[in-house]
């Protein structure tokens, strides 16, 4: 069965989503992963967007979280205050899974989506936090999508936009954040997870044909590779549902 990397990544993320999860997603592959979960393995999961749309009926793939397509047949059309309160709320917040991306990530899952270089005179300016920092601050579990490149998996972020495990160990809690943080990083080469105690990133999965060494070669920092397994490729059924139900206009895939 042929599949693309994007399909692999979307399916790996989707498998992490369970019924009773409320899934915060952005655009692009994160939205695709949330739709895949709902259409494949977690039909009762609920998709919501920072713009305030809950449980949208996504007949077409939105090109932005502010796209009118997220407003169609929602359970409620609120606003930004509603969506972020849902994540910070102690009752609903516990059920939220966030899907995030960034320009840089460090070994504790902290993210940079603001600048490369000096903040006051940046080499490259990115979009900024948006809701990313909010999600990363509030939710108990987040899934991060990254391209696996040395300049993206860095020793030290140029700017810490969205908190992961900060300096590892207990430091997230010491900063005043609630328990939670990133559970996995999904890249074009494999899957990283975080050690329960040290909160350091380790390699948990590689895609068929990728060696752990190739992954290490594409990161500025080292990670433990002793726990690695091969990720199971998307099944025929998963692929069919992903292609037909989630992106039949082929806007992302």
């Amino acid at each position, binding site marked *: 069965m042929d599949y693309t990397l994007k399909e692999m990544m979307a399916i790996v993320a989707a498998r992490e989503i369970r019924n009773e999860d409320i899934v915060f997603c952005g655009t692009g592959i994160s939205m695709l992963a949330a739709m895949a979960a709902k259409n494949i393995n977690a039909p009762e999961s609920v998709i919501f967007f920072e*713009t305030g749309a809950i449980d949208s009926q996504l007949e077409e793939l939105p090109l*932005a979280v*502010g796209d009118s397509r997220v407003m169609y047949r929602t359970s409620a059309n609120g606003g930004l205050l509603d969506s972020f309160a849902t994540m910070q709320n102690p009752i609903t917040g516990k059920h939220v899974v966030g899907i995030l991306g960034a320009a840089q990530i460090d070994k504790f899952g902290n993210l940079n989506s603001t600048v490369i270089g000096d903040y006051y*005179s940046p080499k490259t300016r990115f*979009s900024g936090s*948006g809701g990313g920092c*909010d999600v990363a601050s509030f939710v108990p579990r987040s899934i991060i999508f990254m391209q696996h490149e040395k300049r993206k998996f860095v020793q030290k972020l140029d700017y810490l936009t969205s908190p992961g495990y900060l300096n590892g160990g207990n430091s997230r809690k010491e900063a005043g954040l609630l328990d939670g943080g990133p559970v996995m990083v999904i890249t074009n080469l494999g899957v990283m997870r975080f050690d329960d105690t040290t909160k350091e990133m380790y390699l948990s999965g590689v895609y068929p044909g990728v060696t752990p060494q190739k992954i290490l070669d594409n990161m500025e920092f080292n990670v433990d590779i002793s726990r690695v397994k091969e990720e199971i490729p998307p099944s025929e059924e998963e692929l069919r549902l992903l292609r037909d139900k989630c992106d039949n206009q082929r806007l992302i895939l």
Partner: protein
Amino acid sequence: MNLKQNKETDLKSVISTYVTSGCHLSIGGFTINRNPMAAVYEIIRQKIQGLHIYAHSNGQGVDELIGGGCVSSIEIAYAGSGKFASTCIRFKKAVQENFIKIEDYSNYQMTLRFLAGSMGVPFLPTRSSLGSDIIKIWGFSPEMRKENSKFPNDKLKVMDNPFDNWCDTQKVVVVPAINPDVTILHVQEADLRGNCRIQGLSFADVEQAKSAKHLIITCEKLYKGDELKIDSDRTQIPFIHVDAVVHAPWGAYPTACYNYYDYDPRYLKDYATAAKDDGLYNDYLKKFVYDLNDHNALLKVVGDERLNTIKADPRTGYAANLDRR
């Protein structure tokens, strides 16, 4: 605010009256949806400069204001226009080349800041951004803040929970209120007094509206009578907050307006292409803004045929099956 019975006016005069050089402005909408573009283009056309912008994720509108040279400083959470520009291009250039001063917050923080302003409190608390550089790194220096009474002395503060560990919370971030000099929104429906209805998501428009010292509304449909007093549960912004109302059909174009029209993928793509090059961008500004008299002229340049392709399907509120590649 005012309580007049008829606040209808035209865009040229309302912009020149309220949006003055150096004023602190916020615009409604989100990325590529319901930005008050007719007003944005009028601001650029009037060559108003030195604006200070408060933004959460007001993508296209903010990028065009920056590209038009109207902006000198900005407080913002996100500058992106969805698939068309994952980072807004003129924004990116302006920050990288130090044309504008920038202060970074998160979307929730910016929204809370408008909410604080609308509630009349100096700050609101959140847990967002603890441990991050949003707290540590300030774009506007303490000196700049102290010099100008329109800015609070601090970007934000971390404080201990005054109620011990109530709600399992030891610390909170408090963010300072915003009361923009002017907020401009584009809404689906309004009446002459200024009662406003937004269809679909309201983003942070209501908070931006109620926090503003002056509120300008542009709308798709303007009711001359009291029609909106029927079924008023739907009205999010009552007229008491509004200063001026402008009837501006297609006023969010080229961004979307739910139930009326979709974003124009071709316009946004062409914009992104032009925005990458100063020469092309100057041509863009000349052809699509400066040389045109008003928003209607822009709609004529685009042409009915293209506008028809983005008209909203009444069932879904957007243009189903629109070519968006």
